[in-house]
């Protein structure tokens, strides 16, 4: 048991981060190289101003027509994504790990806040799951992989929540938590979770076309 724990919390962490970072770089760089090879004209149309205008607009809740059309989803998706990214970075237990490993005193927030954020991510995942099953327009375009990525994202938060509260099977749960977190990281460049990497580019391009050529708003 201890060996497994040491392995997943030691070498495997490194593997996960390397796969995540290298995979992400590969995704982004290969995309830009593909533009360079096949659709060079895109560089000419890219506008820093309009890219930023579009990205910022869509990063503000209720700032776009479609966010306003879906108020519940908007609140959920912003809360979900913010907690999803922020919680793992600043949860007290993670902060302690960082401190212990590298002697860096990392910022952190209280256990309660971490707990709430975790619940928000889990609740968000359930919301997306229900949406996927219930709404015909979402169901129609759903494939198995959509459930898989949802599970990949929810798993580290569910296991972390159970482990933190030490409800049952604590040592195993810790191992599951670490492994599922590593899987999530590694999955980002290789599943549709790569929207995190690619969406700034699609947004920027559409923003540039709408702002610079079409003289129109893309929100």
């Amino acid at each position, binding site marked *: 048991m201890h060996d497994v724990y040491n392995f997943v919390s030691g070498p495997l962490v490194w593997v996960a981060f390397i796969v995540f970072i290298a995979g992400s770089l590969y995704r982004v760089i290969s995309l830009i190289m593909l533009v360079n090879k096949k*659709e060079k004209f895109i560089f000419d149309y890219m506008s820093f101003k309009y890219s930023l205008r579009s990205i910022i607009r869509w990063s503000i809740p209720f700032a776009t027509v479609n966010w306003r059309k879906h108020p519940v989803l908007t609140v959920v998706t912003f809360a979900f994504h913010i907690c999803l990214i922020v919680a793992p970075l600043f949860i007290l237990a993670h902060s302690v790990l960082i401190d212990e490993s590298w002697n860096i005193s990392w910022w952190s927030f209280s256990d309660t806040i971490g707990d709430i954020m975790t619940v928000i991510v889990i609740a968000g995942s359930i919301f997306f799951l229900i949406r996927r099953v219930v709404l015909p*327009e979402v169901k129609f375009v759903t494939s198995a992989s*959509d459930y898989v990525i949802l599970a990949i994202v929810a798993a580290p938060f569910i296991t972390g929540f159970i482990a933190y509260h030490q409800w049952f099977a604590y040592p195993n749960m810790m191992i599951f938590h670490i492994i599922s977190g590593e899987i999530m990281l590694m999955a980002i460049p290789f599943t549709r979770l790569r929207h995190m990497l690619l969406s700034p580019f699609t947004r920027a391009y559409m923003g540039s076309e709408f702002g610079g050529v*079409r003289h129109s708003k893309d929100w």
Partner: protein
Amino acid sequence: MSEPAKKEQEKVVDQGIDVGIARLTEDKIKHTINSVIKVETGARLKAYVETCIHCGLCSEACHYYLSQGNDPKFSPVGKVKQTMWEMLKKKGKVSPEFMRRAVEIAHTECNLCKRCAQYCPFGIDIAYIMTVVRRIIHKLGITPLYIQDTAHSHSVTMNQMWVKDDEWPDTLQWQEEEAQAEIPTLRIPLEKEGADIMYSVIAPEPKFQAQLIYQAAVIMDVAGVNWTMPATPGWDNSDMAMFTGDNELMGRLKRSHFETAARLKVKKIVMGECGHAFRSVYDMGNRWLGWKMPPIPIVHAIEFYYELLKAGKIKIAKKYATPVTLHDPCNVVRGGGLEEKARYVAHAICEEVIEMHPNREHNYCCCAGGGVINCGPPYKMKRIKGNKVKADQLFRAKTDGAETLITPCHNCHSGLHDIVTHYEIGMDIKFFGDIIYEAMEKPGAIDG
């Protein structure tokens, strides 16, 4: 009034598709799909397909989806699922039957209006994906008959309507003579080298709506514009090849148009009230030829009228009294940002302008654009049923008092005419030019 879409799935007879499909083999389909995707597409298609999170948030952007009782088959991403995703997943190994459905989707269930690009949180351009599908369809030779016929006309005559080389100057002369009965000094200057403006139109104008050329000539004459029209092919700014995925032909057409303007040494091209032609000269065709922006400045009629009215070059004698509402054509509003200028013109020439909603860049498409109306009669009812939301929108504008509908675009004009008729909305449809011609001062005119 709106029946569920399912009932409507009866098979349409379209020789362009049926005959073409009968000739296909799975091998040819596979080869064509893969070669288009591999050779002609790049980062855009890849990023769009890989980034899409399957959230369905683009659905409510689409008038087809909204009009067909929120049937997911008509949602933007639903159309991609039924076409491009499947082609990619099966690596091109799809059946002729599959391709038949793909033709229906890409050619008659999407207007390439790009409204969905404004609703997708990632800005995924589904219209672009549909044009890739149309490109594949073109290469397989299964484009719907009617629109393919217009493309053939383009290829043979350099205009969309089989207008012969001598019919064109004849028509202009005829309209000049007609207009001279009203303003004796009026000319339609042909081939005038060094004029400020070359005026270009789409081929349906000389073919069916020659009075539009008459009206434009009167406006030009009264405003004292130094203008000309070419007497040679290259006068037609329309472009169905852009919609059939025949990019090579699109390039030939636009080259001939721009080169005609260059030969006449004009400063700019002013075009009539057409949306798709604007897309072709301003966005698509110029790019195919390697021009980031049009090589010769393009001024759409809306902008041209705006400039004339603002500078006082045409004056309004009596504003149009009937309350109007204004349709924002996708290609010049979402595609060219002319919405405020259109409103300036509308207010300058009409007593009362009643807004319909949603409007400006969030307008609903007319459901005729993107080449859909050009696929002809077999799809007319689908097009009308596919835009019930527009009918509802027009009804509301009518309830608010609007009796005339201004649509500064030919496609919108015809598409909305069908909608207004079918849903018995009872509105007159007019171009800006119709109203300006009626309302303007004509100092040189015979009865003043």
